[in-house]
């Protein structure tokens, strides 16, 4: 339960925000989303995009290709950044694993089975938990604050 000081602090911050909005003519800042709300927002934006509506600024759908050896490759374009984390889901609920991107220039095996679609200049992750024979139902691209910013395609198992 909030203390009296907390309540006074909340009231003061609201009044300050109102005063600033009146003084500058700008609306108060938007509330930061929770991790779950960020997922919901990204899911909605991806849904809009995959039914054919143009993305507002940056696309929330990333292409990906899956190779044997636990490798998933992405095009090296935004929203993929150096501090990107990738959450990989094999069933609903919590991700099976969350991996950072492999360092640039990590050598990859080639000529083996693959699914999905990828680009020429790429960044990869190497899965440690998810096996090649497990279908991946959701790939979540997260930014440095661990907030979901985009989704990849569903990827079939690779043999």
């Amino acid at each position, binding site marked *: 339960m909030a203390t009296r000081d907390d309540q006074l602090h909340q009231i003061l911050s609201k009044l300050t925000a109102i005063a600033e909005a009146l003084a500058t003519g700008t609306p108060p800042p938007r509330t930061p989303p929770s991790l779950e709300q960020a997922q919901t927002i990204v899911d909605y934006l991806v849904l809009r995009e995959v039914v*054919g509506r143009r993305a507002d600024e940056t696309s929330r759908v990333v292409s990906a290709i899956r190779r044997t050896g636990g490798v998933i490759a992405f095009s090296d374009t935004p929203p993929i950044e150096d501090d990107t984390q990738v959450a990989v889901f094999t069933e*609903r609920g919590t991700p099976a694993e969350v991996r950072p991107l492999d360092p640039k220039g990590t050598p990859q095996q080639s000529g083996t089975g693959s699914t999905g679609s990828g680009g020429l200049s790429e960044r990869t992750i190497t899965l440690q938990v998810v096996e090649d024979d497990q279908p991946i139902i959701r790939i979540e691209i997260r930014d440095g604050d661990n907030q979901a910013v985009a989704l990849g395609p569903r990827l079939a198992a690779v043999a």
Partner: protein
Amino acid sequence: MFRSLATLLPTNAVFTVHPFQLSRWLEEAWTTARAIPEFGPRTAGALPFLGSDEIIEALDLPEPVASTVPPPFPSGISATTPDKFTGNVFVGTVPLVWDHLSYAYLIECTGIIEVMAEVVRRFAVGESLNTLSAQGTQWVRATEELFFRDPPLFSIGGIVSEVRPDLRITRRNNYWRMFALEPPHGIPARWRRPGHVDQSWKSDTGDGVNTGFREKWTELLRQVWLGFENARNGIGPNATDREYVAFLCQSLREMMTARRQGGQLAREEFVHVTTMSWFHLTVETDTPIVIDLKAEATNPADRLAKIAQRVGVTPAPRARELFELSDLVSSLLRAIEVGLFDNGADAETLFLPIAGNEALVRDMNRIIDLWQSATGDRVKDRPAGTAAQPLRLPSASAALSVGPVTAPAGSVSTAAMTSMNGHS
């Protein structure tokens, strides 16, 4: 889907692709839904996308056994030279899925399909319209072959047969089952088949009609509007109830997914939205057929009105709102259907200013404005003296048992929606 294809080809090139290739591409478009990721992963018990993880594979063409075996009947569409045949499957850059059935319903409510049917008929039987350009001829040929004749054998679009011979009736049946709504205009006398029975699309639907859809949908919009009104309210009484908004979303989800169990209606939805997207695409810009018909304008509704005038048909007076609503409602209902807003915190993203949800809030605001204007439902006002939320929650049941359905004279679905359209 044709609007998505159009974005991957040069301007207006989709109308120059051979209808055989477009027909084959529909088969390929069906399979792209396999790559759609899982949405709403926190929604326990929600049905998977389209009601079944297996419906795409259940109805698609067989895959080649090896990479050396060619796929069966590829579309061969070329992104750079659409009048050529590549011999390969057309590959887009991202996964695509078709719009929600609501898209087809709202576009059909504009009256566009009856207007275009009359255009194609006039070109086929006489010379009462302008002489066509080569591109206009291609549009007429493709439209007639893709949408006004029986579909090719064994295709994903093959939902015409002895058991359901009339696509107009099939569409109305599907709208009725999913939304308990029907287009405001009747089936024109010219297109009624021998033995036509009015309202026959409501027969034999059993328990599978979402009769409470419109009530809950309108209430959802009303509650979200209440959320907008109080979004910046930090000091006064705040009637917004995020859990009630979530409950309404959950009720709508349960209702719609009840119709999708086992992948039901997925194929029909695909056929209907691809059909409507072709006609929507036709009037979305000044396409060759629009120019041939001297119907250039600045928005789809005005183009449709001009074309309709040429062939003596009256489109919906609120067509402009309906065209814009169709995209917005499709995305939102898809999101509701996968359970994105099933809890209070997630439902807040529909109306509170949260970093990143600008597009979602903008979409909701626009849907409310357009729905109120198109249907006459007063979403932004509550009757004087009523509370912000009702005493009792609306029924959360997935579907009401209605038995053999007869036309509910004067019901919301017929009375209010009829006001959207000038057809009798």
